[in-house]
């Protein structure tokens, strides 16, 4: 490890510590509204980063993310709701016995959501990943919808369309941002590892990748399953943020929203996904003013509902037409760039990232 490498590791640790300190103060000083928006942003970061892994880095056009979120949200909700709440909420058909009395703490439940969603990803990936491009897109979108429809119809497990409420509420920035940071770190290290390059190789040229000895299917399945895992986690967090879930939350339109985020940020750039996730979440709130009645020069303009979405659609079109690579293209935030700026010498070794 040369000195530059050491500086970079030091900076990374420093940044993590700094974010902890920031979180600590933010937790105490931000209004609950701002906290909520930030937490929502963290969830979108997890969604964006994990979908980017599948779509941006592995080149699989998968649109099933909302379905995996749905799985995650329900798993965590059912595991963490108190037995009394369950009795109260499942007033049409009681919940099936083994689930009725389960009462897990939040953290293991969230992890379990990831695991179950990953399991679904694995099962679905088996048939679906034999397809490509648009066919994969429509098939995964279909699987996402199928999951949702099953959830709607299996009333004695999910309470059907009535949804669940009284899911333990968590407001702590630590939880959401903790998961977001872990997701970013894990995915970043993964894509910079040998596996990450294998994913990119599959994206660039499947035939050549296979000829270089890469088991295409296994790697696709791996990327897809990891993506599903994080989508499950995000779904679980969404449940704890809103404290109620129902199947209509996870329509395929939700997947489009994530898709927008990663395209705005730049396909193949984690940094871009993070920036866009935060940007879009905050923007949706900031833009609300256009729907409120406005007082311009003594003239009251009545608020027009829907304006926000019109502006948002226009913005999206503008970005895609004029900044087609998204905000970051495939570039990433990296210390080298900063170190070069401030004149720290580069080591001699050629730049393959050997660790992460």
């Amino acid at each position, binding site marked *: 490890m040369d000195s530059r490498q050491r500086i970079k590791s030091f900076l990374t640790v420093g940044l993590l510590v700094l974010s902890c300190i920031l979180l600590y103060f933010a*937790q*105490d000083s931000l*209004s*609950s*509204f701002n906290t*909520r*928006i930030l937490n*929502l942003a963290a969830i979108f970061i997890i969604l964006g980063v994990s979908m980017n892994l599948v779509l941006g880095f592995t080149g699989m056009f998968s649109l099933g993310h909302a379905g995996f979120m749905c799985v995650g949200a329900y798993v965590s909700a059912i595991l963490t709701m108190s037995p009394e*709440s369950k009795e*109260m*909420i499942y*007033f*049409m058909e009681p919940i099936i016995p083994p689930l009725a009395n389960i009462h897990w703490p939040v953290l293991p439940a969230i992890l379990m959501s990831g695991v179950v969603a990953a399991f679904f990803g694995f099962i679905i990936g088996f048939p679906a990943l034999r397809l490509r491009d648009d066919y994969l897109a429509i098939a995964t979108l279909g699987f996402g919808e199928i999951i949702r*429809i099953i959830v*709607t*119809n299996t*009333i004695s497990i999910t309470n*059907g*369309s*009535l*949804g669940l*409420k*009284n899911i333990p*509420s*968590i*407001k*702590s*920035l*630590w*939880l959401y941002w903790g998961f977001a940071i872990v997701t970013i770190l894990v995915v970043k290290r993964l894509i910079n590892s040998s596996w990450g390059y294998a994913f990119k190789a599959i994206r660039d040229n499947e035939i050549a990748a296979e000829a270089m000895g890469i088991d295409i299917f296994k790697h696709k399945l791996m990327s897809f399953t990891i993506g599903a895992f994080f989508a499950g986690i995000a779904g679980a967090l*969404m449940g704890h*943020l*809103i*404290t*109620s*879930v*129902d*199947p*209509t*939350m996870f329509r395929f339109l939700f997947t489009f929203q994530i898709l927008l985020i990663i395209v705005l940020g730049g396909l193949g750039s984690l940094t871009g996904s993070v920036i866009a996730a935060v940007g879009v979440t905050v923007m*949706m*709130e900031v833009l*609300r003013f256009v*729907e*409120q009645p406005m007082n311009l020069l003594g003239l009251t303009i009545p*608020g027009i*509902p*829907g304006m*926000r*979405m019109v502006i948002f659609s226009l913005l999206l079109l503008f970005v895609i037409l004029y900044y087609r690579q998204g905000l970051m293209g495939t570039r990433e935030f990296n210390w080298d760039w900063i170190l070069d700026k401030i004149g720290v010498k580069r080591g001699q070794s050629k730049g393959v990232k050997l660790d992460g």
Partner: protein
Amino acid sequence: GCGGGEEKKEAPKDAASDVIKIGVFEPLTGTNAAGGEMTVEGIKLANQLFPEVLGKKVELIIVDNKSEKQEAANAVERLVSKDKVDIIIGSYGSSLSMAGGPIAKDAGVSVIGCSPTNPAVTLGNDYYFRVCFIDPFQGTVMANYAVEKLGAKTAAIIQDVQQDYSVGLNNYFEKSFKQLTGNDNAIVAKVNYNTGDKDFSSQLTSIKSKNPDVIFAPGNFLESGILVEKARELGITAPILGGDTWEAEEFLNRVKNTKDIYFSTHFDSENPVTEMSTKFMEEYQKAYPDKQVNAFGALGFDTYILALDAITRAGSTDQQAIRDAIAATQNFQGATGMITLDANGDATKTAIIKKVVDGKFAYEGKVEPK
């Protein structure tokens, strides 16, 4: 949370504030937009008629929740923590209400729902109230009506599995119907569809073959209108029953020339239950001359006037006082009837049964709460 410690209450508001803020979160875009739009029309109308309370001007802050849960949660959070509203109204769609409920509860701000009928909305939430009756009541009312007035021995059920409203009503209808007929097999068919479906021919064809005495098919007016029309096209003549969502122009347009359509609702313009009903009707026609009076507008209207009434009774904008005042509502005269809130915060009030006659909704009877 693990951040540690108790909830932070927002700083007390400036007592000298010269407006009273009522926050409204409704779906104005997305799949539930139509319902939200009608509700807001009613709320705005009420605001024009009653612009002041406690001598202060009422400011309506209307935010769109896009028919999405996370947006609904954001919207309520925004209303309580940024706009610091005194009371909240909303939302069409029970799931959206449920997303907002806990946030308002944590902030100690009361919410009055206009039309969320899922019982879970107010369960376990002391700060959530509503002016509509809930699914169990409506379902039961219609079962009673079917058995006692229409003499039905068998029934078929059609439900929109994606709508908690539809599923809920059907659930209670089924229970009561079986009980009243004393026949566990009285429901001869139960078929499903999904929100957004437009083709019901196969469901109806299968029901037709079972030849039920009545069909209970509560659901969104959009799908229901097409469904009922189709049923008649297919030659199904059994009476078709539904719930309050059917009281919409769009539904009527579809079923104008149709016999034996019954549904339960909140009020009737011909037989106004209260003076407020008459007033609402007149004003509504004035304000929106090209639109038909509808239940959602009326419920929105009632929510607003109930909010003002509660603030008046509380005598201040103290959050706790407002909550208690709402909870204590007894025989409040709304456009949709006399409203009394029960221990859950749900309205108990007279249900009206209407029928489609000569291209209009006509009064058929009423059912008092038990």
